[in-house]
């Protein structure tokens, strides 16, 4: 069997029936073999789009996403997505073609050292240098992508290995060892919880990735612990719970940040205390002891020393955590704070400028319970996180760690491929949308019913907000008022669209968009003066957030 066929046979054995990619010189033998394979390939219009689609596929299913590109520019175009998957711990296998072995190292046409380029931005990477190594490398890639803390793995394959014969190889066995907490640490954690007066659960993306949502919700039900979420943790806790406080951090909700600043015990679950969450680190949760639960030993004590750490599978640990219900006076303080700081949602049909938070809340109320929302990066991303509700973490796809503009549309495409019967909405900023706008071609090609909502303030909104607040209103290169006419752009791809600019149009426009059977673009024109509130200024403690000016 030829190398290219062996790859596809291996993917089929792994249960991979859908992959994303873009063909080119060195990877052509694999694309030739695809014609005779049951593996379905989705052609995106840029390798970065293909890789983000694979990320959307992986994040919405917790399965490995696979993308394929050629050598040289194909491979370099994947790198941003590779880094995105690394920082957000997404299980991904990227297959890149490489020039044939005899040409390697000669600066051949479309040759780059992708192995060297990949080193710092993936969980692991390999270059297949013998035919015997091809299938074992792929087996290893799939193991590594999924085991422990998930992440992306790149496999670089020279063209002559794709065209040459490869031997049948035995199944490799993973030698991964799950890190293990001790019973002593578990007891110490439960003692800390029992003796604390003001505990808070700080929920990260690890919960969803460990398939431990049910176990987390059970813990909350047993203990009534107040909860805050990171961007990636959204959807893990039930948003209707009276002690669910929403997202914390730089654009966290006031009740979430203030509760964490007041707590005497912080229980971090699959979260990494990153700088966007903690604000000024030495003033973060200043009265709190820390219990840190994670699968990755490198996260423990990395940003803050944990009083107790529990390493291992959250699905196994969470049922053993927590004893009594929480101190009633703390519960009351937290729920009162939640009510007093609640955002005043109201459907307002009066004429006037559209308010993005209100629109997104309305969209959240109108969309299906299991709808998947993918977004880009910037102001709209924070509004989505603050004002939309998600039934599962896999329903919210957002580029958290890397903060990659252009993520939203291709990730939505990948999510729709994986979940063909689910409502998928890409909420995009006007700046971000233009970064992978070519993927409208993918939507057209496969007629996927992805809904695109562009929140257009004709600005690079978040940068503009920082220029306004922290750079003395010196607006440098953030005016995008020469954006294209998005409806005409959609029409060029045979995509239905609508444009709205006043509040009274919102309800009907959202209804029309969600009911439309095919792909649809809703262009929402916003006032560029709107900002995201609250905001914790850089190098400031989270309780010193600035709230919306009256």
């Amino acid at each position, binding site marked *: 069997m030829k190398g290219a066929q062996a790859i596809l046979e291996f993917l089929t054995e792994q249960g991979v029936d859908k992959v994303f990619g873009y063909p080119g010189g060195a990877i052509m033998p694999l694309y030739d073999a695809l014609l005779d394979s049951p593996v379905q390939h989705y052609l995106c219009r840029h390798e970065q789009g293909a890789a983000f689609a694979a990320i959307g596929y992986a994040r919405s299913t917790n399965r490995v996403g696979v993308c394929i590109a050629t050598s040289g520019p194909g491979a370099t175009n994947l790198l941003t997505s590779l880094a995105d998957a690394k920082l957000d711990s997404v299980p991904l296998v990227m297959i890149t073609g490489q020039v044939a072995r005899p040409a390697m190292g000669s600066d051949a046409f479309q040759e780059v050292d992708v192995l*060297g380029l990949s*080193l710092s931005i993936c969980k692991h990477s390999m270059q297949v*240098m013998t035919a015997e190594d091809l299938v074992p490398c792929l087996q290893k890639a799939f193991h590594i992508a999924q085991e422990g803390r998930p992440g992306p793995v790149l496999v670089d394959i020279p063209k002559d290995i794709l065209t040459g014969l490869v031997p049948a190889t035995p199944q490799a066995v993973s030698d991964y060892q799950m890190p293990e907490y001790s019973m002593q640490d578990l007891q110490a954690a439960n003692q800390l919880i029992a003796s604390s007066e003001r505990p808070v659960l700080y929920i990260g993306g690890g919960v969803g990735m460990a398939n431990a949502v049910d176990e987390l919700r059970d813990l909350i039900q047993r203990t009534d612990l107040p909860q805050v979420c990171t961007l990636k943790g959204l959807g893990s806790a039930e948003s209707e719970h009276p002690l669910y406080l929403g997202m914390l951090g730089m654009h966290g909700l006031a009740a979430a940040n203030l509760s964490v600043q007041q707590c005497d015990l912080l229980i971090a679950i699959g979260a990494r205390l990153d700088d966007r969450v903690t604000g000024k680190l030495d003033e973060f949760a200043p009265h709190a002891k820390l219990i840190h639960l994670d699968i990755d030993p490198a996260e423990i004590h990395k940003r803050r020393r944990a009083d107790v750490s529990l390493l291992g599978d959250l699905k196994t640990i969470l049922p053993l955590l927590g004893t009594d219900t929480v101190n009633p006076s703390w519960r009351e303080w937290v729920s009162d704070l939640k009510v007093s700081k609640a955002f005043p949602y109201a459907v307002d049909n009066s004429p006037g400028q559209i308010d993005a938070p209100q629109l997104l809340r309305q969209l959240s109320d109108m969309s299906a319970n299991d709808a998947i929302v993918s977004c880009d990066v910037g102001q709209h991303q924070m509004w989505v996180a603050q004002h939309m509700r998600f039934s599962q973490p896999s329903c919210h796809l957002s580029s958290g760690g890397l903060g990659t503009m252009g993520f939203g549309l291709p990730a939505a495409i990948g999510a729709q491929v994986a979940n063909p019967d689910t409502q998928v909405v890409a909420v995009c900023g006007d700046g971000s949308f233009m970064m992978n706008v070519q993927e409208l071609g993918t939507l057209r090609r496969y007629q996927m019913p992805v809904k695109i909502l562009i929140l257009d303030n004709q600005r690079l909104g978040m940068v503009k907000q920082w220029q306004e607040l922290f750079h003395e209103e010196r607006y440098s290169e953030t005016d995008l008022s020469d954006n294209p006419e998005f409806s005409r752009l959609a029409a060029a791809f045979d995509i239905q669209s609508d444009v709205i600019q006043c509040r009274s149009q919102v309800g009907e426009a959202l209804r029309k968009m969600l009911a439309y059977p095919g792909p649809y673009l809703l262009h929402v024109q916003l006032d560029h003066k709107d900002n995201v509130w609250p905001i914790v200024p850089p190098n400031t403690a989270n309780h010193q957030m600035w709230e919306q000016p009256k």
Partner: protein
Amino acid sequence: MNYQLEMLLTDQPAVLERVLQTTRYRGFRVDSMQMQPASKQMKVSMLVSGKHPISMLTSQLNKLYDLASLECQAQLVQSGEQQSTQAQPLPKTA
């Protein structure tokens, strides 16, 4: 602080680059390095210095798939002292 790292690495392409890249990125400087092949593995001894706790580096090195074992020992010489020695002006020649 200075630390002596003793590593056993699988002899795979880019394994040395991975170790060096991780060391640099996590805030440490390689002061000396020696390697020696050992069957399908290689032994690497490295003296590193840096201001962060060494666990910042060792916990990340431990995640490398081509690292079979890692031992780390703190050295007595302070990097600050070394730097101050190096910073002394060179003696003038006649």
